[in-house]
C-alpha cells in the first residue's frame, strides 16, 4: 500500500519538488505508507553542502532530514541519474538508497505520484 512520490525537478528553481515533499509528509502524517524517489535533475536534492542562503530559501537537504521523523519510509535515488549529475556516494546525504527505477522497482508501489 506504499505510495511513491517522485521528485524529478532540480531544487530551488521550481517549487514543485517542495510541494511533492509536502505531499509525502502529509501522507506520513495521516499514517499512509509512503516513500520518495529522486530521479533526473531531482537527484540534486540529495547533494551535501547546499548553501541556499543567497537565494533566501531553506536547504532542501535539511527539509529532507525531517522525512524519517515524519515517517516517510525510504528515500530512493536513481543511481544512474546520480552518476550523470556527478553525485559520488560521499556527496549524497545520509539515508538514501540507490536503485534503478525499473519496472521491478516501480511495481513494488501501489501508487506512484509525480509532484508536478
Amino acid at each position, binding site marked *: 500500500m506504499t*505510495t511513491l512520490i517522485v521528485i524529478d525537478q532540480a531544487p530551488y528553481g521550481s517549487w*514543485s519538488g517542495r510541494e511533492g515533499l*509536502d*505531499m509525502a509528509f*502529509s501522507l506520513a502524517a*495521516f499514517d499512509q505508507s509512503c516513500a520518495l524517489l529522486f530521479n533526473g535533475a531531482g537527484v540534486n536534492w540529495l547533494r551535501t553542502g547546499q548553501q541556499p542562503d543567497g537565494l533566501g530559501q531553506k536547504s532542501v537537504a535539511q527539509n529532507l532530514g525531517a522525512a524519517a521523523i515524519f515517517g516517510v519510509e525510504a528515500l530512493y535515488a536513481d543511481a544512474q541519474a546520480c552518476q550523470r549529475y556527478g553525485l559520488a556516494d560521499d556527496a549524497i546525504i545520509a539515508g538514501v538508497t540507490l536503485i534503478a527505477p525499473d519496472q521491478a522497482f516501480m511495481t513494488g508501489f501501489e501508487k506512484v*505520484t*509525480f509532484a*508536478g
Partner: protein
Amino acid sequence: MADISLQTYTVVITGAPYSSQAPQTALDFARAAVAAGHQIDRVFLYGDGVHIASALICTPSDEPHWPRLWSEFLAEHQIPAVACVASALRRGLIDSGEQQRYELSAHNIRAPFEIAGLGEWVEAGTCSKIIYFHSGA
C-alpha cells in the same frame, strides 16, 4: 464501445490556467467521465492549479474563462472542489476565513471552491482513483 466498469475519480490539477493546458484537459476529462456515468468525488487544486479558484481572473471576451467553466461544471454536478491551503496562501488565493486570520484587505475564492488541507487529498487516495493533470513542464 467496450463496457467499462464505473469508477469514482478524484481529479487533481497542479497546472495553472493560461500558462498550462492542465485545467482545460482536466475539465474535458471530468465532463467525459460524468457523461459516461462515472463519479467525480472531488477536485483538488494543488501547486499552481489553485489559480483556477480565483474569482479575479478576467479573460478577453473571445477566450475561454476556465475558472468560470470549472465553477459551472462543479455546481451543475455538485462536485466539491478544494484548493490546498498551503499552495493557495502562497499564491494569494484567500477565503474569508484566511482573510480574517491574516488581516488581509480582500478575499478572492470563487464559489464553489473551498480551501482545505492536504488531508483531503490523502483521504481521496484511500477511496477513489486519483488522476493528475500537471503543467507538463
